[in-house]
């Protein structure tokens, strides 16, 4: 993803006035953040295909008819599981990128790993909703 020298972020004492190194670190961090924003996470699970943005928002979704045959609650569960899998895919890419950029044992990589766990570690839940009477949208497929 980047050709940065991971030694840039080694924990060595800075010489007085080592402004150049600090500025290089800040620039590298900004470039890394911009690269992360361009990542996507993908998953294809049980008839549900999901992609998420670099921030984890659902970007695209495709669902087979087969995934719909057990009703809305089951479908909601499948979508939630697929979104979580896409988040795990994204988190893995982010962690790999930070290790390559900052060094695998660096404080920065550890912070990023913790941050991705906080942001993507828990799957969404089903919202309990009483949908009440059905809405007439026209003919639907016969339930298999």
């Amino acid at each position, binding site marked *: 993803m980047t050709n940065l020298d991971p030694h840039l972020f080694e924990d060595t004492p800075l010489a007085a006035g080592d402004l150049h190194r600090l500025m290089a670190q800040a620039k590298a961090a900004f470039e890394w953040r911009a690269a992360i924003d361009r990542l996507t996470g993908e998953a294809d699970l049980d008839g549900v295909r999901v992609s998420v943005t670099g921030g*984890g928002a659902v970007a695209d*979704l495709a669902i087979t008819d087969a995934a719909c045959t057990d009703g*809305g*609650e089951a479908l909601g569960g499948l979508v939630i599981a697929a979104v979580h899998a896409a988040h795990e895919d994204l988190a893995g890419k982010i962690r790999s990128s930070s290790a390559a950029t900052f060094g695998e044992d660096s404080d920065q990589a550890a912070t990023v790993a913790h941050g991705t766990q906080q942001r993507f570690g828990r799957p969404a839940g089903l919202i309990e909703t009483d949908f009440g009477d059905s809405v007439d*949208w026209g003919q*639907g497929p016969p339930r298999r």
Partner: protein
Amino acid sequence: MSATDDVEREILARVEAQTREAEQRPARVGAWRDEVLGTRGRGTSAAGRVVAEVDLQGVLTGLAVSDVVAQRGGREAARAILAAVTAAHEDVRSRVAQSSAQMWGADSSTTGALNAEVVADNPLLHDPDDGPPATSERPEGTW
């Protein structure tokens, strides 16, 4: 009582008010920050038959899909879910913008910076208003 005493009293009162405000401000800012961090956006589509919730960072936190929407097949269900998620992102943007404007002012740099972050995390990638389809015939549902 002289005019000088009145001026002094007025200045003292103003200083006391500013001191009180300065003492209370950290607590108000902290409360506002907690409120923003706990922001949840909620969006619906298909006449309320799909409900989606996202957190401040636009990450899906909840979903409900009715049997009626599932019956329409995969393509319609996906469109409705994406519409609900987009509506939830809109809700987050609106809540944070309103809260920040009330706290810091609509034109403040703080409001601008926060709104920019929230907008980036809550993209409007799909039409939030999917509505019922114009035709009663079920389109092909598989991708």
